[in-house]
C-alpha cells in the first residue's frame, strides 16, 4: 500500500511570494493556506505574545475589508477559516467551495498588502481583551494549565526565544501598542516572507494567474531581518525539577526533553519511538502504567518539532488516587530507559509503523491538511516535496535508530520533571510526593 503522491507546481512571484498549487478534483472544495515565516520566536523581550495578538488583528479589517468582514465573507461563501500562531510561524487558512477560491485569495492579499489602512486603537484594545481571555481560558483557569509555559521555560534558557510561549504574558499583552503593530507588519508581513498554497478543485494555471493578479502588486521587504543563531547544546546537562500546587484532584507528572530540531532524521525515529511508548492502548507506557500496574489514569508522550535549535518531547502520567507519585515517575522513566537500551522487536516496530502509515493516509485525505503541510515544508525547509517523502522516512526507521535516539534524548540529564500536586489533597486518598529539589531559578 502507498499513499497517493501529491503533485504540485512551485514558483516564486517577482515580489518573492512562493506559490504552490496542487490539483485534486475529488471534491468541489479548495484549501488556501498562507504561512508567514514569523512566530513567537521573533518576539523581543517585553513583547511576548505579540505575534499571536497580531494574528488576531489580521481579522480586524484592511483597506477594502471591514472589521470581522473577512470571516463574514468566507462563511457566506460556505467556507471555513482560521489562523494560528506557533513558535516558528503564523498561518492563515480558508477552505471554500471551489468556485469561491478567488474570494479567498483576494481577502488574503488585501490584508497582506493593506492591513495598516484599517488599524485602530479600538480594534487593537478589543482583540487584546479577547486574547487575554483566551489565555485565561487555555492556561490560567484550567487544571494543569501552566505545564507548557513551565516546560518551555525550563527547557530553553531565558535568552532563547523558545523560553516563552506563544500566548505570552498579561503584562506584555497590556503593553502592546499601535506602533508595535505597524512595525511588526512592515517587518514580517511581506510576500517574500510568505508561502501561499492552494490545494483542491482548481486548474493550476488559473490559480497561479489569480495569485499573480492579487498578490503581485504587494511590495517585498528588501531588508528582512535575519534571525540570530538559535543553536543550543543538544542536552540540558542537568535535570531540572519543579513542584506545582494547583487546583487539581489528581497528581500528574510531566516530563520534558530537549530533542533534535525539526527536520532532523533522528526526529523521525523519535516520532516512531513515541508511538511505541505512548501511541494508543497497545503502547508500552499505557500497557504497563495504566493496564497492568494500574498506577496511572492516563499517559502521553509526543514531540513538538521546532527548527530553532531544539524540539520538545513532552509527556505525562496522571497518578491514580492513593498511588505514590514517585512510583509512577520511576515506572515512566524505566520504560524510556529500556527503549534506549534494547532494540524493539520486528513485530512491535511493524505495528507502530502500520499505525503511522494509516495516520498519514488519514491526514492527507483532507485538502486543508495537504495545503498546510506543503506550506510548512516550504517555509521551514524550502522543500515542499517532503510531503511525499515523510512517510518513507518513517517507514525506514530502524530498531537501532530508535534505541539510539531514545538513549540520547530520553535521559535524566536532559529532562525537566514537573510534579503537579493538589492544593487540597483529596480526603480519601493518600497523595504522596517524594522529596524533590526545587529549581529556584524558574520556580519563583
Amino acid at each position, binding site marked *: *500500500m502507498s499513499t497517493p503522491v501529491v503533485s504540485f507546481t512551485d514558483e516564486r512571484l517577482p515580489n518573492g511570494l512562493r506559490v504552490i498549487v496542487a490539483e485534486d478534483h475529488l471534491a468541489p472544495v479548495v484549501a488556501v493556506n498562507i504561512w508567514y515565516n514569523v512566530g513567537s520566536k521573533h518576539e523581543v523581550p517585553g513583547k511576548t505574545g505579540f505575534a499571536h495578538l497580531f494574528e488576531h488583528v489580521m481579522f480586524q479589517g484592511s483597506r477594502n475589508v471591514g472589521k470581522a468582514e473577512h470571516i463574514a465573507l468566507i*462563511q457566506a461563501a460556505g467556507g471555513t477559516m482560521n489562523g494560528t*500562531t506557533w513558535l516558528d510561524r503564523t498561518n492563515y487558512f480558508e477552505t471554500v467551495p471551489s468556485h469561491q477560491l*478567488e474570494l479567498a485569495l*483576494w481577502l488574503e492579499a488585501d490584508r497582506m498588502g493593506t492591513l495598516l489602512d484599517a488599524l485602530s486603537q479600538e480594534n487593537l484594545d478589543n482583540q487584546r481583551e479577547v486574547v487575554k481571555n483566551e489565555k485565561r481560558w*487555555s492556561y490560567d483557569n484550567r487544571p494543569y494549565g501552566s505545564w507548557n509555559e513551565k516546560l518551555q521555560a525550563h527547557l530553553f534558557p531565558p535568552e532563547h526565544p523558545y523560553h516563552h510561549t506563544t500566548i505570552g504574558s498579561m503584562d506584555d499583552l497590556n503593553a502592546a501598542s499601535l506602533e508595535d503593530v505597524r512595525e511588526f507588519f512592515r517587518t514580517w508581513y511581506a510576500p517574500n516572507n510568505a508561502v501561499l498554497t492552494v490545494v483542491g478543485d482548481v486548474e493550476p494555471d488559473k490559480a497561479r494567474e489569480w495569485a499573480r493578479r492579487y498578490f503581485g502588486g504587494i511590495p517585498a521587504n528588501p531588508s528582512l531581518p535575519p534571525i540570530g543563531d538559535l543553536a543550543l547544546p543538544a542536552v540540558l546537562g542537568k535535570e531540572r525539577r519543579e513542584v506545582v500546587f494547583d487546583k487539581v484532584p*489528581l497528581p500528574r507528572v510531566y516530563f520534558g526533553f530537549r530533542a533534535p530540531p525539526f527536520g532532523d532524521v533522528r526526529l523521525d525515529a523519535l516520532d516512531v519511538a513515541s508511538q511505541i511508548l505512548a501511541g494508543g492502548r*497497545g503502547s508500552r507506557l499505557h500497557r504497563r502504567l495504566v493496564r497492568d500496574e494500574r498506577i496511572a489514569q492516563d499517559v502521553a508522550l509526543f514531540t513538538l518539532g521546532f527548527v530553532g535549535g531544539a524540539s520538545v518531547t513532552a509527556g505525562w502520567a496522571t497518578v491514580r488516587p492513593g498511588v505514590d507519585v514517585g512510583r509512577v515517575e520511576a515506572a515512566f522513566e524505566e520504560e524510556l530507559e529500556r527503549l534506549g537500551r534494547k532494540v524493539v522487536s520486528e513485530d512491535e516496530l511493524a505495528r507502530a509503523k502500520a499505525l503511522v502509515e494509516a495516520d498519514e493516509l488519514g491526514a492527507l485525505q483532507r485538502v486543508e491538511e495537504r495545503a498546510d503541510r506543503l506550506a510548512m515544508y516550504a517555509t521551514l525547509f524550502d522543500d515542499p516535496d517532503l510531503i511525499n517523502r515523510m512517510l518513507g522516512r518513517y517507514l525506514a526507521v530502524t530498531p537501532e535508530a530508535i534505541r539510539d535516539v531514545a538513549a540520547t534524548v530520553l535521559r535524566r540529564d536532559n529532562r525537566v520533571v514537573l510534579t503537579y500536586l493538589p492544593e487540597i489533597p483529596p480526603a480519601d486518598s493518600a497523595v504522596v510526593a517524594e522529596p524533590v529539589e526545587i529549581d529556584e531559578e524558574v520556580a519563583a
Partner: protein
Amino acid sequence: MTGVIATRPVPGTPRPYDFPPFRRDVLSNGLRLITVHLPGRPLVSASLILPNGAADEAADQAGATVLAARALSEGTERYDAIALIEASERLGATLHAEAGWNATSAGVDVPAARLAPALELLAEMVARPTFPDAEVERLRDERLNDLLQARADPRRRADEAFAETVYARESPYHRPSGGTKETVARLDGRRLRAAYTRGVDPARATLIVAGDLSGLDVSAIAEDLFGSWAADRGARPPGRLVDRSDVASRFVRVIHRPGSVQTEIRIGHRGVPRRIPDFHAVSVMASILGGLFNSRLNMKLREEKGYTYGAHAGYDLRRGAGPFSARAAVNTEATVPAIADFLSEIDRIRERPVDEDELRAARDFLVGVFPLRFETPGAVVGALSGIVVHDLPDDELARYRPAIEAITRRDVAMAARARIEPDRSAIVLVGDADAFGRDLEAAGFGPIVVERDEAPVTEGPAEGVDEEMGPVDDHGAGPAEGAEGPADGRPDEPADPNTRSEVDDGR
C-alpha cells in the same frame, strides 16, 4: 502605493455537488448494511450502530452503557485485550467503540486493502465480547477518577451543573451519560453485559462502510462475518424517554470557585429533539444567534466587548429533547454585564425579525459548507449514522440544502419564539462568587442560589461529563444545528475551543 485590487471578485459557477450515493442491503439475519463508494479515499471507515444509548438505561445503572462500549475491546472469546489491540495494530487499523445518549457504535478505520481482516476483528468484538471483571474494574476506576477530574475543570463542571439544573431528577439527561460516582461504583462485568445486550439485535442494527471500495464485495464480506450474528435474549427496544424539565421560572445557580479568573456561563433550558418539523428553521435561527463566527452573541460579547474568547449558543439534538444553551467563559469582572448581554440578545431574536442580510449569510453558510463537511469517509459515516440513529428518511441529506434555502425571516421568528424560552431558563455560573455576588444580586436576573463547597474535591455529589463521544452523537444528521464556530486567532495550543461539537453531551 501598494498594488492590491480593490474590487471584490465575484464567485464562479458552483460545481454541482450531491451527498455521495449510498446503497442499502439487508443481511440474512436482518442486519442493515449501508455502503458508500468514495473513489480516491483509501482509508475506509466502518461503523456498526446499535440502538442502545445511555438515555435508555435504568437510573441505578447509569453509566453502564457508556462503560460497556468502552469494555467491548477488553476481551472476546478468541482474543484477550492485548491480542485484539495488537491484531488491529498489525493491520494499521483503529478499532473503537463508544456509546452516547442515543446509541452505541463500534467501528474501525483501516486502509482499504485490509478491510476484510479489520471487519473480522470488529465482528469478533461486537458478537463475542467477554467483559472480563478485572478489566471492567479498571475501566470503572478510570471513570471514577475522570469524574474527579471533571469536577476540577470549570467548563466540565459548568456543563454538568447545567444538565442537572435543567432536567428533572427522573430524566437521564439530568446526569452525565457516563454515570455518576454513586452509580458507576456499582458497575461490574455482569451489569455491563446486560447494558450491552439490550442493543444486540441485528434487525435493529446497521453497519455503515464508506471509502474507496473498488474491488471489494462488501456485502459478501459482511454476510460472511456478520450474517450469523444472532439477537441476544436480553435485547430490548428502547423504552419511553423522560426528558422533562421542572424549571418553572428563571433563576441563577452559582457554583463558587474561589480565585477563578473566569466565570463559565451557561444559560438555557430543555430544548428540542432532532426530529422536529422546524429543524431547518431552528438550525438557521441558532446559527444567527450563536452558531456562526459572526453570530449576534459572538459579535457582541467578543468582537464588541472583548469579554470572552468565544460566545456560542445552540441545541444539543438528541432522540429526546436535549438542552438549548448559550455559553461563554468570561473574565470574572465581566460576569454580570455578560449575562445581561446574553439575555438581551436572546430577547432580541425573539422579539424582532432578523435582518434579511444576516438571514442570507446564515443560509449561504449552511448551504455552501455542505460539501466541505463530507470530504472524508469518517465524516460520511457520521452523517449516515445520524440518519440511522434518528430514523430519518434516506433523502434527508439531499433535502437539506433546498430546505435551508427556503427558510424565511418569518420562519426564523417563529422558531425563535417557539424554541427559546427565556422565562424558563436556568443561569448556571462557575466562578468566584465573592467577586461578582453583589452585582449579581443587584442585576435582578432572578432568585440566586450560591453553592460553596470548598471541601476536598472528592466529597460532595461528584458527577461528571462523559469525555468519550463517538461518531453516533457527533453532529446528529450531519448538517444539524447551527454551525461550527470558527474563530480567528488561536495559537496551536493543546486545547481548541473551535472543535467543540454542538451536539456532544458536554465536554
